[in-house]
């Protein structure tokens, strides 16, 4: 009898592991033969509504994907709710998406406090909180929060990079820092301090904060000049960044000006501030700036332009947030296509954690997306660049993994 069973067992084993069986479709709530439901929260109202354009760009991108046949025939149903940048509202909307709308996963919820508020919930419910729209360093913790993953290079690392550059080029610098008084500003400042290490206390001669609601940062710039600093680390969002650049120029202060990535867009910051006043500004970049002339004939840029004109014409091409949204949406597309017919939440996370040297054509050449079971930080590389009055000149090597 035993001799008969073995061949039958072997046949069964072969049948079960054959490609036909493996290609069986597996769905979790939100996925089906015809659609993939993706949830999102964004601030479409309230003081942070400037970032709401990211949600709109992503929605437009998925519409384009759907028009071209969707993902293996499945249409993306992108459900985005307004949370007004208020954490209680984010909790409510996330619960609605997960419990009522039954989405497959949450993609790019925006804001550090918003994501902090739903962090435990998403992991308890085992629903992916994927490619969150914040650069805080805490999203790269697969051991404790296996369902949460960031996307952009984190602020802390950015601060460290500026620190290293200062140590290399101007080791006796006197550093003055302007930072936004919230998680973003404090995270970057901490990165700067950690990067300077023991020398932080002696090198940083003045740190001043500002609130997003402050009308101008002129007083802060005057304070920094008065401190005698000759290096200025500028951790601001676009409006304050433009004001800072202009005031620095107007009062005749000429420090080495490091400007953080969020506030370094040519179209939304340097142009209003004045190109002549922005010469010499140093920043780190990971995606291509639309207003940067060096990419004018880049095929990737042309595709972006066509996409915006057709699917999001009221969006501002020069707004870096739109390029950001476009790039992250394309990253998700890679993950979805990789997942194939296995659209379970676990597999989505698995695919997101298995990105190997993925390139997106709107990221800088040399930037690769890499993730693994222990590395939940997709983009960890950036490049320093300096504004020459017309465009950003990349210098040095690509930093990071």
């Amino acid at each position, binding site marked *: 009898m035993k001799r008969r069973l073995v061949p039958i067992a072997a046949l069964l084993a072969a049948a079960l592991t054959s490609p036909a069986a493996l290609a069986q479709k597996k769905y979790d709530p939100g996925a089906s033969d015809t659609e993939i439901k993706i949830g999102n929260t964004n601030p479409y*109202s309230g*003081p942070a*509504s*400037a970032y*709401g*354009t990211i949600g709109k760009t992503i929605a437009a991108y998925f519409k384009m994907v759907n028009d071209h046949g969707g993902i293996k025939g499945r249409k993306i149903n992108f459900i985005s709710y307004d949370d007004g940048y208020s954490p209680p509202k984010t909790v409510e909307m996330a619960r609605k998406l997960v419990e009522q709308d039954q989405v497959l996963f949450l993609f790019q919820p925006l804001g550090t406090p918003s994501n902090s508020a739903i962090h435990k919930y998403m992991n308890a419910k085992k629903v992916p909180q994927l490619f969150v729209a914040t650069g805080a360093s805490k999203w790269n913790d697969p051991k404790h929060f296996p369902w949460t993953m960031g996307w952009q290079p984190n602020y802390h690392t950015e601060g460290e990079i500026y620190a290293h550059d200062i140590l290399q080029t101007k080791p006796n610098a006197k550093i003055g820092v302007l930072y936004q*008084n919230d998680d973003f500003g404090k995270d970057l400042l901490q990165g700067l301090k950690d990067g300077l290490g023991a020398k932080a206390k002696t090198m940083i001669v003045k740190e*001043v*904060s*500002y*609130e997003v*609601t*402050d*009308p*101008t940062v*002129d*007083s*802060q710039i*005057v*304070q920094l000049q*008065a401190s005698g600093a000759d290096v200025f680390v500028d951790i601001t969002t*676009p*409006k304050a960044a*433009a*004001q800072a650049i202009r005031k620095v120029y*107007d*009062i*005749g202060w000429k420090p080495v000006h490091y400007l953080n990535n969020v506030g370094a867009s040519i*179209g*939304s*910051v340097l*142009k*209003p501030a004045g190109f002549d006043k922005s010469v010499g500004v140093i920043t780190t970049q990971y995606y291509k700036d639309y207003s940067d002339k060096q990419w004018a004939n880049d095929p990737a840029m042309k595709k972006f332009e066509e996409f915006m004109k057709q699917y999001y014409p*009221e*969006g*501002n091409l*020069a*707004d870096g947030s739109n390029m950001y949204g476009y790039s992250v949406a394309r990253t998700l597309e890679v993950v979805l296509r990789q997942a194939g017919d296995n659209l379970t939440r676990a597999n989505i996370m698995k695919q997101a954690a298995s990105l190997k040297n993925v390139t997106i054509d709107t990221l800088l050449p040399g930037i690769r997306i890499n993730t693994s079971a222990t590395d939940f930080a997709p983009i960890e590389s950036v490049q320093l660049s300096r504004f020459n009055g017309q465009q950003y000149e990349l210098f040095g090597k690509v930093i990071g993994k």
Partner: protein
Amino acid sequence: MSEAIVHQVFAGLATGGIYASLALALVMIYQATHLVNFAQGEMAMFCTYIGWSLLQTGLGYWPAFLLTVAVGFVLGVLIERIVIRPIERTSVLSVVVVFIGLLAILNSVAGWIFTYTIKPFPSPFPESLANPLMSPHELGSILVTLVMLALLYLFFRFTPLGLAMRAAAQNPESSRLVGIRVGWMLALGWGLASAIGAVAGMMVAPVVYLDPNMMGGILLYAFAAALLGGIDNPLGAVLGGFIMGVLENLLGAFVIGNDLKLAVALVLIVGVLLVRPSGLFGTVHVSRV
């Protein structure tokens, strides 16, 4: 050290000028209606966007400026007639809530039409006067605010129309009895306040850059400044604005750090109000029992 103080004082006068110009609009609306219009900032911002759009069509600065002020005036009158008139008779709180609603609408619509990317706004004052203490525009806009103040003073004090407006706000019943068209006085008041707001917006935008949330923080300071100076005294409001600007800067730079300067500034103002409940220069109301 003293140079730093001087620098901060001048920077404070510059921002104070910004607060003063919007405070003037708030006082204007208060004098006409005895209400504080929370949507004043957003109305000013919206008018500034209209001005920006006119400039984009190629119109020169001064024609666009004057046209924007005119549009601002009309906008104010329209809002009074259409939005405020129906609920004037209900409680003060209902009107305040309507103002908040108006604020939300204007902010959201501006963001929708013009996007949130900041836009530079030109300044009519020549760059040749540039100096490290205060930009030519900041100097010029302080001048403009003072000119507006003077014009308002002359208007209320010496013209029959100004007198009629003051009467209508203070005692509508008696004013009607002497033949003043109270309804139109209110509309006129709103129109003037909105026009002042438009000027304020166009003076402010070159400094802070034009975006839908431009006036949010400024409104708060302007409100505090107007009350500090006395809500029924235009000169008081302007002075209050300058005091606020300088106070805030000095606190932030030398006393408490930027983290808490807003809180401390407001506490100080409330402290002043406790001592002088009608503001520094406001008229003290004594009611006989």
